[in-house]
């Protein structure tokens, strides 16, 4: 019976998984991310409302829970107004890349530990049974992969800003590319410390290296640096200068409407999920529970998913909470913070971590 399972899983094997498994995983990831992005807008509005002593959406469906569906329908049916002087191709590539790159990056994020169907987990492999990884594509440099793909998102912002042939869009696009490139460095440097401790760029291995203590305890500075830089990476307040609606109308997506605009939003919210997922995996022990857990069977895997989602949701809440608390940075201060504070601190963190690891090894 179990052997049959493995056979089905292995049909048309690409890498480690069969084509059936890959297709199912892909559909699940795509639907889950789209839904998550939609409901994040709902959550954001609810959090914002409560902070401002309001109630928030409560008219569409019970507790306003169908609001995202109503918004999606509205976006899809709106007229696709576009400026006549636009660059026709790049104008389309922008939003497509925004949504696409964000969804693509999530492919390498493991949402739970390795599960062996009909076997037991030994170390980081299986003795018999089918090794089921809780990610879409299993690469041994998944952290690097995610960082590389998310930085593709910069193109979407810049192309969107450039192709619309509007000054506000262009300014927003320029700002966003400068900001994202600056903070990309800080993000990477903040993560290096944890990578040194884990000795791997594989997110699964990084998580397993935290079984003793979560890296947030060993690398508190790095966590703080990462989270700050990540806010800038996702264009969230207090670093939402590319949009800065009071200065730039709406920044790079000023000239977008309908579902093209929707795609920028989808990308932004999925990027939030990705950034929080990485923070969870690298610093908060990923799917590792606070309580002892059952490894190596489906239940254990699902419990891991629950822990992972719980931690990610908590971080997402913190992002929203920060947004409605802090005012926007001035542009020069944003650059100062990135280059003169976050980057040097990240370097110090790497040197100190590296030194301690080297001393303990010798």
């Amino acid at each position, binding site marked *: 019976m179990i052997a049959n399972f493995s056979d089905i899983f292995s049909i048309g094997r690409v890498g480690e998984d069969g084509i059936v498994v890959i297709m199912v995983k892909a559909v699940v990831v795509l639907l889950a991310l789209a839904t998550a992005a939609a409901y994040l807008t709902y959550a954001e509005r609810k*959090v914002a*409302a*409560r*902070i*401002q*002593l*309001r*109630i928030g959406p409560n008219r569409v469906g019970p507790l306003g829970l169908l609001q995202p569906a109503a918004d999606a329908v509205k976006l899809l049916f709106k007229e696709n107004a576009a400026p006549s002087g636009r660059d026709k191709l790049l104008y389309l590539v922008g939003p497509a890349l925004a949504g696409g790159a964000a969804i693509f990056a999530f492919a390498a994020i493991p949402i739970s530990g390795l599960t062996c169907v009909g076997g037991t987990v030994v170390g980081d492999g299986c003795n018999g049974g089918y090794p089921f990884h809780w990610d879409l594509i299993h690469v041994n440099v998944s952290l690097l992969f995610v960082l590389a793909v998310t930085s593709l998102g910069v193109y979407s912002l810049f192309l969107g800003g450039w192709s619309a042939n509007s000054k506000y869009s262009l300014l927003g696009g320029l700002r966003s590319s400068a900001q994202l490139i600056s903070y990309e460095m800080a993000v990477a440097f903040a993560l290096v410390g944890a990578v040194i401790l884990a000795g791997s760029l594989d997110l699964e291995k990084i998580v397993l290296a935290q079984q003793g203590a979560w890296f947030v305890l060993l690398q508190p500075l790095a966590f703080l640096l990462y989270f700050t830089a990540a806010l800038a990476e996702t264009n969230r307040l207090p670093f939402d200068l590319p949009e800065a609606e009071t200065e730039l109308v709406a920044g790079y997506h000023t000239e977008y409407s309908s579902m093209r605009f929707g795609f920028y939003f989808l990308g932004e919210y999925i990027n939030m999920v990705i950034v929080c997922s990485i923070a969870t995996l690298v610093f908060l022990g990923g799917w590792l529970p606070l309580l002892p857990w059952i490894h190596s069977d489906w239940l254990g895997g699902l419990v891991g998913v629950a822990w992972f989602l719980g931690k990610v949701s908590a971080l997402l809440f913190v992002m929203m*909470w*920060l947004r*409605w*608390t*802090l005012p926007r940075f001035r542009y020069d201060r944003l650059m100062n913070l990135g280059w003169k504070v976050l980057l040097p601190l990240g370097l110090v963190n790497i040197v100190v971590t590296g030194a301690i690891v080297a001393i303990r090894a010798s």
Partner: protein
Amino acid sequence: MLIEVAKGLAFTLKTMLRKPITVQWPEEQKPTAARHRGRHILHRYDNGLEKCIGCELCAAACPVGCIYVGSAENDPADPVSPGERYAERYEINLMRCIYCGYCAEACPTEAITLGPRFELADYRRERTVVTKAELLEAWPSFAQARRPNSGTGAGADQKGRELHEPGVSPRVAWEAVDELRTDSPRPDEFGVPSHVPRVISPDEAEPR
């Protein structure tokens, strides 16, 4: 800097735990302010005579010209108002009105004031021109209905008490007042009364 951020976060978290102050209109309604400038009311004297003497000063004072007064001579045997003339027609175009209150200021007899009613949207343009039948205070008058123990007929009395209990919305209150109006006909579908409201003579109108 981190301490300030933490302080800010603590503040917003505390705010988040407080009860929202949103009033869920239209299900929930708060009474309007005492001097709220909503839709106009044409008043009567306590004996039932209309205060409006048809002088048209309100129409003259109106900066947007939304008031039309069609005045007529009073029949001395059966007067509508204490003056020589009265307003046979009194119409206000609420689409034009800016609720400035100049009409009330101009009025020499305090016949017109701006009231608490504010839910004036309608699906039909014709309905937004309100006529005298809608503007005129009911008889037994609103003022009397307001005093539950004044002893003016059991029905009005009961209604009046309900109207002025706290928590009754102005709309509900107004609908109840509409029901009290037995003498003035409801406007037809174009907002024009089928006839001018029946005039009540002072003798007939004096219930006490």
